[in-house]
């Protein structure tokens, strides 16, 4: 995402809600958004993995963004969605979010970079804060969200 910002002035983000907070996901990594469906539990995996789903014949692992962010899990409503990300070809992964709100375009000057704060363990997942129509959107660093395996 870093090089992306350098190259382009404006980036489109999908705004999702987790609890009361809003997060932005860079649209170029989003392959698909699907409704919540039956998730098959996989035993003995990292706790934030809810299991796998069948996405048109492909097996896609699904993780809960809430658990990953160390927030308490709650019942998902009808508004919940799975965002299918493809960071690399052949390796899709799903993120469960409470709600998908909209797509926003953020200019460079609307994004405030965050300084890494070692005390806050969730800070590593965020690359910046976007300001859009008076609301704040935390922009997710997807590689950090997905990549960190040991942080179970």
């Amino acid at each position, binding site marked *: 995402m870093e090089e992306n910002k350098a190259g382009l002035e404006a980036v489109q983000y999908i705004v999702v809600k987790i609890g009361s907070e809003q997060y932005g996901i860079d649209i170029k990594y989003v392959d698909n958004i699907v409704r919540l469906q039956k998730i098959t*539990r996989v*035993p003995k*995996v990292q706790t934030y993995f809810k299991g796998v789903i069948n996405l048109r014949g492909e097996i896609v692992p699904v*993780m809960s963004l809430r658990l990953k962010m160390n927030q308490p899990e709650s019942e998902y409503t009808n508004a919940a969605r799975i965002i299918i990300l493809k960071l690399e070809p052949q390796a899709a*992964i799903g993120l469960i979010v409470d709600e998908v709100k909209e797509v926003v375009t953020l200019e460079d000057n609307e994004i405030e970079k965050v300084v890494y704060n070692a005390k806050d363990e969730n800070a590593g997942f965020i690359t910046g804060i976007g300001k859009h129509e008076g609301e704040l959107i935390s922009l997710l660093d997807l590689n950090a969200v997905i990549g960190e*395996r040991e942080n179970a």
Partner: protein
Amino acid sequence: MDTSQYLEIFIDETKEHLQNLNEQLLVLEKEPDNADTINEIFRAAHSLKGMAGTMGYKRMQRLTHDTENVFSEIRNGKMKVSADLIDTLFQSLDALEGYLENIQQTADEGTDDHEPIIKQLNDILANGTGAAPAAPVTPAAEPKKEAAAEDNKKGRKYKNIKLEEHEISAMKEAYKKNMSVYGMTVYVQESCILKAARAFLVFKALEEVGEIIVSEPSVQDIEDEKFNFDFSLYLITEANEEKVKKVVTSVSEIEDVVLEKVENVEAFSGDREEKTEEKVEVKEEKPAQAAAQAAPAKQAAPAKQTAKPVVNRTVRVDIEKLDALMNQVSELIIAKNSLVSISSTENSESTLQGLHEQIEYLERITTNLHESVMKVRMVPIESVVSRFPRMIRDISKKLDKKMELYMTGEDTELDRTVIDEIGDPLMHLLRNSADHGLESKDVRIQRGKEEVGSIFLNAYQEGNNVIIEVGDDGNGIDIESVRAKGIERGIITPEQAETMTDKDVIGLLFMPSFSMAKKVSDLSGRGVGLDVVKSKIESLGGDVEVKTKLEEGTTFIIRLPLTLAIIQALMVELGEEKYAISLSAIQTIEDISVSDIKYVQSKEVIHIRGTVIPIIRLDKILDIEPREEEPENLTVVIIKKGDKLAGLVVDNLIGQQEIVIKSLGKYIDNSKIISGATILGDGEVALILDANVLI
């Protein structure tokens, strides 16, 4: 013109030639006077040189050229085969393999010139024949030039080129600038396979010294191979005749070039012009086009070096297999059509019966189809093992131990993905046999064995598995010393050591960084051997077993599944969840009463037909909520791995099914119990249990 489209063929064929050379050299080493072998080697080396030249791999070409020279002398009986010579030749083959590897990775041959090998080859030539091998290219080129002079008259096809106004003016311009214009006709050898590539190389070489103003046939036609074995062109250049000639003849498989300086452009062109005036209009912008074409080609070259995936992995398929596949697909279409017609008929009674028939038919077709597709993916194991004789020879020299490799069942077929992975583990085991397994000569004689040690590699199919045995008639594994080493390393306690069976002790050899070698050598002893072999084979869904007898030898038995993608599985139910267990791992299914469960060392076991089998409670391992009350009878699936057994307690059996294995992806990190997932008929996902890990 871009040679990249030939790259795949080039790599494939080069591999074949190199392999062939390796094998023939081994034969030659044993029978230095075998004329057939020498001829065969010469042919392979020659084609190799030709191909490398075609593709513009100059270093590779040079090395093969020198190698070929040596072979040529041997063939003519001017030189004798010696051990030194064979060694050097093997070295040059290795160097060529190095080039090939580079080409495969990056489409570029790399920058290593392998000067020492070339020098060695030339020294051998010099010593062997008593003649100086200096500049082997020039004598070859000399007669060609003379021949060219003789042929000049009949070969001047370039005079037929119809010149256009602006082309002639370009020539005149050149004369003013004190440059020369040459007309030439280049003859490609008739045996040349990639003549378009050759022509391209000639063009490229000429572009470097000057400018091609026109060619006949056009550049486009030459690229499309729309020409016989010659083409003509006019070149403007500052270079002299000699140089131009040299440039052209430096491209290999060029039979001849007829070249003449156009002295009097005025008269010459005037003469041409009269004859061709009416026809010329068609030829527009040819030089521009040629230049334009040459330019991107040049630009493309450096770009290619960085681009990574040069060659796709390919499988050569027997046409018969494809025909069978085609047949089955047409049957599938027929079955589909029948289903369509059934669905459109009204009568419900007969429809249902017809439907059932069609579904059965469909089942048969899909099974056959699966089989055929799997067959297409099968490759004989030969492609991996054929390089081993050469390797054993090298090891034999290095260790100064006499040994012979015996191989059987090279035609046993395995899935392509398995073949790609199996080479390294096998190599490891063979090295182990050669280094640790076989005793030194003195010990062998003392033990009354043949002085030459034998190593064997046998492959054969057994049911749904392929077995590969790698063994030797050497020392065998000294179980007691392994046991002692285990204690010394602190891997096991002395108490444990006493209760361990021989089998368990041998199992220690497969532990990471457990090496029995007293000294570390080039070949082995660093302790990164057997555990890697084991994990690799297990990742392919197979297992390794060891049979050994002290002073008589060791055999490693590798068992591999025929295919990886589709398996027969037993579907079982645990609580709400469904799991698949590979049928090949299942021994039997038993219904036992809870009261039959005994305890040994506070672990649950059952005693069936004289065997004590440990019980594994799957619900505990898989974190499934236990059933509220334990039923009186338990369904136990007995699985086996080698000769170990275990009983898996499941809630329900669903039945046997053919399942397609899918990976869980790289993000999920489970403790290997789940080897993959599959999608059931209703779209639900079921996980596949890896029986090998459970035991």
